[in-house]
């Protein structure tokens, strides 16, 4: 029997992989991928918890919105990365450190 706990565990694993990608990857596109993973982990949680809302299907609806929003965010993110590349000639976040003191 697959319980909600299994969903949550998978979701947490995916989220952690996303966090790892964001923190450790040396490529901005991979960070964007990490963000997508985290969004998808949260969508999985929506869907998993939607099982207990069988009247309105709020979780599924919210998941659909989130998928659209994620696609839009990815488009914006890629555009930013493209501009960053043009400006810095690199997309390695280590080299983009103008925020330091």
């Amino acid at each position: 029997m697959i319980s909600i706990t299994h969903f949550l565990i998978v979701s947490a694993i995916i989220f952690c992989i996303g966090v790892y990608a964001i923190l450790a990857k040396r490529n901005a596109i991979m960070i964007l991928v990490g963000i997508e993973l985290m969004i998808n982990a949260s969508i999985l949680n929506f869907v998993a918890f939607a099982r207990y809302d069988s009247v309105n299907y709020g979780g599924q609806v919210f998941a659909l919105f989130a998928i659209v929003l994620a696609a839009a965010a990815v488009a914006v993110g890629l555009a930013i990365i493209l501009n960053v590349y043009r400006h810095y000639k690199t997309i390695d976040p280590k080299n983009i450190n103008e925020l330091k003191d």
Partner: protein
Amino acid sequence: MNELSPISPSVASLLVVLLPFLACVVQALLGRKSISGNISLIAIVSSALLSFFAVFLPVWGNSPMAERITWFTIGQTSFEVGLLLNNLTVLMQLIVCVVAVPVHIYSRYYMKGDSGIHRYWMYLSLFCFAMLGLSISINLLQLYVFWELVGFASYLMIGFWFTRDAAVQANKKAFLINRIGDLGFLIGIALVYSHVGTLDIVALFDQTGRFVQGLTETGGLQVVQKDNTWVTLAGLAFFLGAMAKSAQFPLHVWLPDAMEGPTSVSSLIHAATMVAAGVFLLCTVFPLFNATSLLVITAIGTITALSGAVFALAQYDIKKILAFSTISQLGFMIVGVGIGAWDTALFHLATHAFFKCLLFLAAGAVIHEMAHFKAQTNLDFDPQDIRNMGGLRRYMPKTYVCMSIAALALAGFPLTSGYLSKDSIVVSAYEWASTAGGFYFVIPVTLIIVSLLTAFYIGRLIFKTFFGSFAMQSSVTAHNRPHEAPAGMWWPMSVLSICCFFPVFGLHPLAYHQTWIIQTFHARPGFTEQETAHLIIPIVLTVGTLLALLLGWFWYVKNRYPISQQNRWIRFANRQGYLNEFNELVFIKGTVGLSRLLYAFDRHVVDGATKLFTWTTQQLARLIHWFDANIVDGIVNWIANGTYYMGHLVRQVQNGQLQNYLGFALTIVILGILYLIIK
């Protein structure tokens, strides 16, 4: 009383003083352009004429006159300057003028061709101004100012040939020794002023003055008690001033050295007038002296008279003989003051001024001609040494006659003025001693011995200079021989030699009581007159003088000189009793030694203490510096560095790496969650 002149005696005496001053100023302004000395000569001749006709004749024997103007005021006290014309001051002024005129004329010839002659006339006029001013000062402070001025003029004149080392040493010596005396004078003035409150000579020493009568009826002032200690001290202080100026033992050492100045100056300043200023001062302040100070004055005067005469015996320099003779005669005058018969002292001052001035002028003529002879023959000898002279009466008969007259007056020969004045002192001293009795007879006896010594040494001078054979006879040729002095030099001498005879001073040739000076002053000393003394003493003196001259004649003219030159006593007298050596040893070496000691003290103790203090301060400063650099700055720096490293540590976080930021954020969130879980 004033029918002889149209101007008042006060104005006239002021002119007498100011004319030489004017001459001095004009001469100073003209400088080298005026070398004839006419300015000074005109000034002094006018002064002399004014002094005699417009001052001396109206005032002499009449009541004193005084003029005062306020000089300056301090608080309630006014100081006055002015003129005091009484018998004493007008006599002194007249003597100065009358002696100064022949000296001025003589100087024109004596100083002819000297490169510094313009200075000579300036100094001579300065001296005349100061001396004339001194004689008529009404105020002790004013007197002191002129006293210093005559000392300064004397200093300038002694050092007139300032390129000679001896002259410079001599004027320094004269200046220093006169400082000692001036200090005494100043102390005397201060004592009188602090106790009596005035320095006016009339108010102090006149017949109605504080020291004589006081003004008990009108002002309620008391007569000063003569037995007070301060009166004795003041008297001795004034006497100290007179001792230095009048060359009294042991402060006489400057006068023989002062002969480094021109001879004409020696005759005026160091024989006739300035050195008599001390005697004049003592006569002026005479009422101040009490029995103690008078006894000291008498004793010092006697010692001076004796030592001067003894030292004169063995001198070879013609001017030094005369210098010691002056010292000895000044001793006589001081004795005259000391025994209370200051009129005799003043009388001797007057006669001495003439014959001693004449002696110096004649000696100057001899030196002048000897120096000429030396220059002509190119010989090397001292023109002032009497051993190089002899037989000069054949070459300079007029000088010989003049000098012999003066020498007879000095020796106290009858019919001369010196006979009258010297006898007056010796007889008074005898009368004084017979009133006081006993031990006091030492003083008249000493004076008699000194008179005989005087006759001997002046005889020696005359015999060695003018008699016998000329020491340089081998160098004398038809062209190169000593000449008579020029007319301009022996005319003044002959005028002075007339003044060496008794009629100038009194009509009776043998009785000093009938001279006009003694009759006018008529001091009332506290002793009785003795008829026998008036008879015996002059006879003893005259016979003794003749014997002394005879002895001199045999010894020096007949060449029967019995004593070895190397005799210890002769050497003692020749070296002036080793007084200079004594002074050298005690005062100069002592002062130098003391200075060395003080220098060493200063160098080692005072400087050492300073250095130790400096060193200590330095070390302390170093310690404080170390503390400051290491502890105070250390704390501040440590705090600053700590803060910096803390900031640096945290600063590493702000590195611009977004991933790091996120990592930190995550860490904090996880920590927060852990916290919530654990709690």
